């Protein structure tokens, strides 16, 4: 089997961009604000489910067509319709995609805020971690068994990327990779600006000691709710790119393993450091792709065992080694992060 190096690189960059958004989102929540979100897969899946809804309901309406049930006996007809619209009506396709991103961010943010708020008020943020871990699985199982969202266990295909109308599939993939990387870059800049602002200082204070932050006049529950809104909105955006990249929405993609992958990225890269989140996302994406390609090659060569699962062993080993030998990650959190230090200038002596 020959590997198309160009196509592989584009695929790798696209996966990296999506992983980077997920990692930056979790880094903001846990690395900076100390909220252990073990339900990252839930918020990513919200993006996927939103795309499933907009591609089957909103897209036909934007194109001036009637909505067709995407799951029952009209499955093929509905699939044909959305595929045709994406191929022949670029403005409609792009508009639908942008609206999908906005709705996914809003719903993701709201679910993050609502899910977190009661648990955060218990003053034990680890309860929230457990609530989200369990909630993530419950939602996945419900979606898998409830047809109207993404056709239950069958899932939804033909969730095409917004440059599908270009006849050249290499060019459309390249543009999509460019779009994903641009959004990931903007998310990085946004997170970096947050961390370097007084709001970033506030988030770190809540992470360091919530009781003292409260005694200094800060409304900790509100701050945690806000950051869960922001982080979950970003995860929802990543979910849209994730599903559009694969072209297929299935509840089975949003298992706990996805959440753990993102955790490995931020622990490996360095908690509290946005550049660390990017580095972790890059390294894990490369490992992920390498194991996937190796698995395919081994299958082609007739090996009987599934090499794909080696990635789980690898990620587990990485997590354990990092926690044991370098808990601060490859790129530790910088000492001075807020702009106030630059503003004060040379009065302080840097250490």
């Amino acid at each position, binding site marked *: 089997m020959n590997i198309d190096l160009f196509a592989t690189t584009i695929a790798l960059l696209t996966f990296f961009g999506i992983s980077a958004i997920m990692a930056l989102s979790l880094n903001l929540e846990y690395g900076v604000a100390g909220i252990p979100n073990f339900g990252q897969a839930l918020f990513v899946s919200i993006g996927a489910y939103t795309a499933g809804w907009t591609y089957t309901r909103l897209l036909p309406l934007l194109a001036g067509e009637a909505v067709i049930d995407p799951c029952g006996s009209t499955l093929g007809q509905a699939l044909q319709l959305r595929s045709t619209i994406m191929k022949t009506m670029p403005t409609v396709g792009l508009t639908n995609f942008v609206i999908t991103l906005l709705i996914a961010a809003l719903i993701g943010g709201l679910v993050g805020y609502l899910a977190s708020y009661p648990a955060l008020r218990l003053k034990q943020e680890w309860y929230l971690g457990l609530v989200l871990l369990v909630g993530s699985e419950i939602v996945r199982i419900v979606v898998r068994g409830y047809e109207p969202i993404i056709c239950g266990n069958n899932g939804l295909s033909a969730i095409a990327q917004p440059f599908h109308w270009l006849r050249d599939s290499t060019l459309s993939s390249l543009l999509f990779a460019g779009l994903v990387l641009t959004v990931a870059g903007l998310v990085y800049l946004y997170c970096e*600006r*947050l961390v370097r*602002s*007084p709001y970033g200082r506030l988030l*770190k204070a809540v992470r360091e000691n919530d009781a003292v932050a409260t005694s200094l*006049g800060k409304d900790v529950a509100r701050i945690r709710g806000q950051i869960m809104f922001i982080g979950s909105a970003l995860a929802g955006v990543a979910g849209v790119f994730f599903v559009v990249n694969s072209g297929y929405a299935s509840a089975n993609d949003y298992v706990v393993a996805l959440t753990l992958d993102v955790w490995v990225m931020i622990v490996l890269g360095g908690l509290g450091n946005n550049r660390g989140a990017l580095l972790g996302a890059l390294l894990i994406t490369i490992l992920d792709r390498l194991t996937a390609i190796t698995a395919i090659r081994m299958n082609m060569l007739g090996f009987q065992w599934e090499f794909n699962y080696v990635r789980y062993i690898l990620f587990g080993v990485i997590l354990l080694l990092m926690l044991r030998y370098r808990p601060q990650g490859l790129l530790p959190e910088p000492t001075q992060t*807020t*702009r106030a230090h630059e503003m004060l200038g040379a009065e*302080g002596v840097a250490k």
Partner: protein
Amino acid sequence: MLELQNVSKHFGNLRAVDGVSLRVPQGQIIGLIGPNGSGKSTLLSLMAGTVQPSGGKILFDGHDITRQTADQIFQRGLVRSFQDPSLFFRMTALDNALLPVNAQRGERPTHAPWHHLWRQQEQTLASRAGGVLDQVQLGKQTNTLAANLSGGQMKLLELGRSLMGAPKLLLLDEPTAGVAPALAYTIFEQIEHLRATQGITFLIIEHRLEILFDFVDSLYVMHLGKVIAQGKPDAIAANAQVREVYFGE
């Protein structure tokens, strides 16, 4: 300025604070002493709103703050420090000092990414924080992580951080605990200076009576959750009951 009327706190059968009434007049430095376990720190927590009282009333600046939350009480200008340095250890001295300031524009998530919306205020606050850190002798440590400061410097940073919250009344829980004697005196001189120059009122728990007695206007003595004596340092030092429970004489 601060008045406690018959305030109690029970933990099951334990009466940690049992019907305490006291007054802290504006502009004074009041000491609160007593043996370990007498209820002093619990009383401070009740005043600051970090623990809710079982009974009684707490008035601050004419407002009933008995059932208010810690952040609401802080907003009124009643600021506390903790017995063990309660800093944000993985943040610099400067960031620690800047945190208590109310109404920071850049603390709003909608403003935070656009630094032109808060740059000017942050610049002003950073200069003010630099001045306060200078004042508490930490001018050279602004960029040092709080975790890397000495015990005495941590106490000074906690004092500086409290000052950045624009307090009217500062509740200090053992401000010189674990601090070398020379620095302990410096801390109290800073307190006296702040009272004189900024009119801040202080209520201070302290075990180093030899220093405390030199600076306070008057003292309350607690034992087993109750106030057993109140008066000027000389009178307290001569009080037989105080000498019995506190000095074991």
